[in-house]
């Protein structure tokens, strides 16, 4: 039997999906532990005890100023070197919703060039928070978290999830590099033209999740931890028998990576 990988669930003031995200990792065979950002800032070396770093959803620091901004600035400050080292050691980093916002704004996911950060997550076109289920299609062979996944059905719940790149060329490069790993798609599972509400926030190229160059960091707006039971599916009562729970694969892939 293999050893359970240790998962650091990073918690900050306003993080609120830590509990169920830990539960999802546990369900997938991991050993999650919730760690407060203050504790990590005090002893950054703590990170070394873990194989997976997960920044869960929520409203870190109230999403004041901009979503994920303050936690991002803390991470790229005193924690930059330990996180860099962590990533360099063939370990995994996952950011869900607010965690995605933090990863992109800290530059860990898409490092800045001379012009600054190449992309960000901005306000939904609707201008407000929305909770709804979306159809997703994977588009990357390099992202370890999405290995073997093709179409997923997951809920989103955010106000600032519109993926915006600085230039078209940034998008092209990310697409060529298979980094635009997860995209909103139509209910039939196809991309093509994906109109609102199927693309719920107006993301460029319908991007719902992005991985880094290595494929070992994934940030995504949808909440896989909210679809790990058949009764999470909004239409489960329509099914004759229990169905699959699409979100679990992301956590299982992360655990399998170390087994």
């Amino acid at each position, binding site marked *: 039997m293999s050893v359970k990988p240790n998962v650091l669930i990073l*918690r900050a*003031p*306003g*993080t*609120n*999906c830590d*509990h*169920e995200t830990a*539960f999802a990792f546990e369900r997938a065979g991991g050993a999650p532990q919730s760690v*407060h950002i*203050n*504790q990590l800032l005090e002893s950054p070396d703590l990170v070394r005890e873990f194989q997976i770093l997960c920044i869960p*959803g*929520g*409203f870190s*620091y*109230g*999403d*004041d*100023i*901009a979503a994920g*901004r*303050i936690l991002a*600035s*803390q991470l*790229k*400050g005193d924690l*930059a070197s330990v996180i860099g080292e962590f990533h360099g050691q063939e370990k995994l980093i996952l950011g869900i919703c607010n965690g995605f916002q933090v990863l992109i704004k800290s*530059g860990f996911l898409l490092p800045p060039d001379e012009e*600054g*950060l*190449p*992309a*960000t997550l*901005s*306000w939904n*076109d*609707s*201008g*407000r*928070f*929305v*909770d*709804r289920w979306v159809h997703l299609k994977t588009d990357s062979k390099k992202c370890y978290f999405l290995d073997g996944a093709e179409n997923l059905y997951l*809920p989103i*719940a955010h106000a600032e999830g519109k993926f*915006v*790149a*600085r230039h078209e060329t940034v998008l092209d490069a990310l697409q060529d590099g298979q980094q635009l790993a997860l995209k909103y798609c139509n209910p039939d599972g196809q991309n093509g033209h994906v109109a609102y509400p199927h693309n719920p926030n107006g993301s460029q190229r319908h991007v719902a999740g992005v991985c880094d160059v290595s494929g070992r960091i994934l940030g995504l707006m949808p*909440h896989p*931890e*909210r679809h*790990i039971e058949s*009764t*999470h599916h*909004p*239409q489960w*009562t*329509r099914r004759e028998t*229990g169905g699959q729970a699409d979100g679990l694969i992301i956590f299982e892939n992360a655990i399998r990576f170390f087994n």
Partner: protein
Amino acid sequence: MADAEKTQPAGDPQERESILWQIEISPDAGQPDRLARNILADARDLGLPEQLQLVACRGFLIQGGLDRDQAVEIAEMLLVEPVVEKYTIGRCGDSHFGEVSKELPGLFYVLPLAGVTDPEAESALEAIRQLGFPVEAVRTFCKYSASGLEPEQQDILCNKLLANDSIEQVVSGPLQLTEIQLGQPYQFALLEVELIDQDDSQLMQVSRDWQLSLTLVEMQTIQKYFADLGRNPTDAELETLAQTWSEHCSHKTLAGRISYTDEQGTRQFENMLKETIFAATVEIRQALGDRDWCVSVFEDNAGIVKFDDEFNVAFKVETHNRPSALEPYGGANTGIGGVIRDTLGTGLGAKPVCSTDVFCFAPPDTKLEDLPPGVMHPRRIMKGVVEGVRDYGNRMGIPTVNGAVYFDARYVGNPLVFCGNIGLLPDDKSFKKPLANDLIVSIGGRTGRDGIHGATFSSAELTDASDITSGGAVQIGNAITEKMLMDVLLQARDRNLYNAVTDCGAGGFSSAVGEMGEKIGAEVWLDKAPLKYEGLSYTEIWISEAQERMVFSVSEENWEAFRELCESESVEATVIGQFKPTGQLTLKYNELVVADLAMEFMHDGRPPVVRQAVYQASPASAIPAMSRTAEQNREDVLAILGSWNVASKHWVIRQYDHEVQGGSVIKPLVGVQNDGPGDAAVVRPVLKSQRGLAVSCGMNPYYGDHDPYHMAASAIDEAIRNCVAVGADPAQIAILDNFCWGYTDRPETLGTLVRAALACYDMSIAYQAPFISGKDSLNNEFSYTDPQSGERHTISIPSTLLISAMGQVPDVGRCVTMDLKKAGNGLYLVGTTGNHLGGSHWSLLHRIEGGQVPTVEPQGARELYNLLHESMNGSLVRSCHDLSEGGLAVALAEMAFAGHLGVEVDLQDELEATGLSVTEYLFSESNSRFLVEVEPAQEAAFQALLGEHARRLGGVVALDEVTVSCGNETVLQSKLSDLKQAWQSPLDWE
């Protein structure tokens, strides 16, 4: 990361001149101007010209010993999103900030008033400090450039759209500030109030001058208490008594003596609530004996019942009406924040697992000219309230799973905002007991002038001058402060670090400490309380309703561990006193006694309120029989689906996170496109367990216009049947009451309330559904002077009783939703249909006032609910929907479009059996009814089980229309798409 060198402050910050930097951030070219767009969306409601143009930007004022490079660095590192935004920076007052274009000559800045909570500024201040910059203060602002307007229009724009003057100020033209005001130092002076020598009229003058909302008898009682002591009260003593004796805190009317007269004679109540609602619970618990599943009812901040072997659940629903009328966003914000602290402060602390929200507004299409002076447009109130609940609930990470919105013109001056919260707590943490000599510890937010006189204000009538006189009663919440508080509270609870906890709600410290120390005594050191800014008097500290604070009773040996835990998560914890076993409440400021009251006088000294209540039934007039064509029936069902009350609330629901915490089972919107109206929500509060909670509500103010007894009975039945419809066990449903009424000093108004309470007793007993918690809000009336005629008018809300229900689902895998599942299945009407068009939506549509209002026959209904539950347990039911507003016709339509399947039913046998007309049968709102879909293979078993209660009306068909016939005649036919569109479009807002 930017060059680390630069982030270090050069030298001692004290040496550097403090500068007020202004940073303005706007969307880059091609990016939407969200702020302006939101405001323009509301501009038309207020009669502003269509061609109004507006450009907005957000900004920060940052005060500190910073040079320009540092200010730029702060902007770029923290404040600006360079991919989508641009910014300008300068000293506050720099001329370039005041430049305007010819197209947009108007320039307005909107800033929070000094002392009003500014969460974003607080976060920014902390983050800038963490980066190492010497910053003293931060304030946020919004800047607007507007096209030319007439002075009157400009006034509307500034005061009704851009800013709310109870929390914000508008500066026309450029900002010319030199510093951010942080309050003036407080000069201590002990204030005594002349009381013991005053006559009655002078006593009432004192009550008014100090906004105490105390009656003459109460003032006389206070006068006597102090006369016996041989001294005058201090202001703090008077304020403490006013808070403790307020209607809001003590429910003196409903828990008081009432002499009630109706058609059956006169009945004397010593304590009306105790003899009706509480009494039902007591009787039910006694009858259950060993099987009693109530744990703590009407004692703590929320009612507690058993959940499983390990956990209990607490449920509380609060009203937060008055503040929401003045500042909808802040009012709703603090409403939800407050009720969350109620469950957090129940027992030794319950973990909030889901919220409910119910609102009552005037119709959103109310014409501007029909609004009384001094009230906000209902559409704006509704938007603000929804946003307030959204921003607070979502940030707290608590799913908002259930709710309702009701519309009636009489809510125009008094919108109602009900916020509910359910929490989970370990069985052995369900009771609290502060101990003598425990420290009184305050944690969470700091104390400011927020919400002074909230408790007494919410017990008084609103007037058109309220928005001028009561601004101090409005508070803004900071959800993250409360989330941090919650995080440490739950850890401290599990480590047994305290003996008792309660929240600071209305009355602030005064009610929290007063309640906790009631049986012991307390000494409070007011100067120790951490303040948001200088300048608060001892009394202001004592009665401030600043949000996000809770008070703990911590033993001296646990204090250090408690303090360390709080500190580890950046939560401020302060000892502000001690529960000294004196029986006295003693307040000190810098060692000087500023109040010294006997706890006994505070809690038991209030003279009983004695009220008269009269109920006189208005004779019911029959609705004349009408023959309606199929086309008329179709128009009626479309109109009812499109009426404000029935129409889809997806615009509201989708703004709430209803799935956070990962326990969602039945969502508020269900069906093949996730957009049908579910009857109740189901959540699993313990992730490893399949046991669920069902949450629902019932309310129908229109029935109250006919008979408040039947209104209350119907609301209870509706809440319970909604729970049963999704699979809750009818044997274990707890209910909560929230009475919102008009001016109950009037015997007729109080009479309708007592009559409703009598129904509560009867139904609770009949359904064996105990009340576990409740709250009332009285005197919901709005008075104004008509500007044309000069006449004084008063608008009373309709008598409004909200019943919230919490059911339990042993195995969520057996839950049922309301969307039709499959063509070929049978469709059954369960329950009895009578001629109940009185108060129905069909009558509302046709402006018909008479008719018989729906009644409840609880014995039959209870049997029916048990059988239906049994059939669900046996997996005989594919879908189930309760019949409520709009009756059978609306339920059929909703089930059909939610499942995207057609329906064919025939009413001929039913009409013959009941003697009802087609219209009566289709639109009657008889209680205790469901439509149930059953698979052919299960129909025999279902019929055998339900017996007489169920009648087969027809079946599900693979067509896109609903067809109702009567023999050979089609009496109602409509396409699914038409039905759905009628239902979705009214509130399909941008």
